């Protein structure tokens, strides 16, 4: 029969508030991290990335924070808008020496923006 997937964590946010999406990673050797946004019916789209020699990077309305000590990554979205409703994935590059530029993805967080 059809398999049942795991529950997707959901963050419910009021329009105009700031959103914080968290991600834990396990590989202390990872040197690159990236956030993707996936809207319903579409493939993931790049939001922002950060290398391990940085602890903060800002884009348009988004900020990524990296805490290597506790292996934690977060994405902050300022003044959340209805168009921010989507599933957000973090990913890491697990091996800088491996061919192919692989990424390892987290399970995702769904963000629902309430009007």
């Amino acid at each position, binding site marked *: 029969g059809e398999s049942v997937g795991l*529950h997707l964590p959901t963050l419910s946010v009021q329009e105009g508030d700031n959103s914080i999406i968290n991600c834990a990673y396990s590989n202390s050797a990872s040197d690159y991290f*990236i956030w993707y946004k996936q809207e319903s*019916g*579409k*493939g993931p789209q790049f939001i922002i990335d950060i*290398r391990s020699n940085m602890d903060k990077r800002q884009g348009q309305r988004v900020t990524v924070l990296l805490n290597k000590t506790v292996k934690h990554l977060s994405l902050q979205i300022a003044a959340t808008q209805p168009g921010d409703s989507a599933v957000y994935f973090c990913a890491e590059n697990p091996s800088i020496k491996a*061919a*192919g530029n692989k990424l390892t*993805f987290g399970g*995702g967080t769904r963000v629902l923006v309430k009007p």
Partner: protein
Amino acid sequence: DVKVTQSSRYLVKRTGEKVFLECVQDMDHENMFWYRQDPGLGLRLIYFSYDVKMKEKGDIPEGYSVSREKKERFSLILESASTNQTSMYLCASSQTRVRGSYEQYFGPGTRLTVT
């Protein structure tokens, strides 16, 4: 703009059928990837290719094979489809590390149902 296209948005196949999923990218990228996406499990890498005719297994290659005869095209093959292969399949491509980025560009996905 980078464009990654997938041959079908929706497919319904019967158990035991051989299934071909095609992916084409138009940016001369060296690397191409096939993922499957299931709720709460994120994106799991099936196979990837870092050059024409080169392929490597990802995390869940069982039941799948791939073909890359031309740089722009990467095919995923289900030799004998089973119901547990019902999923969303995403193709992606990337350039070998450019300016420290491992960004992958995704297609819109193919939702495959095996009955």
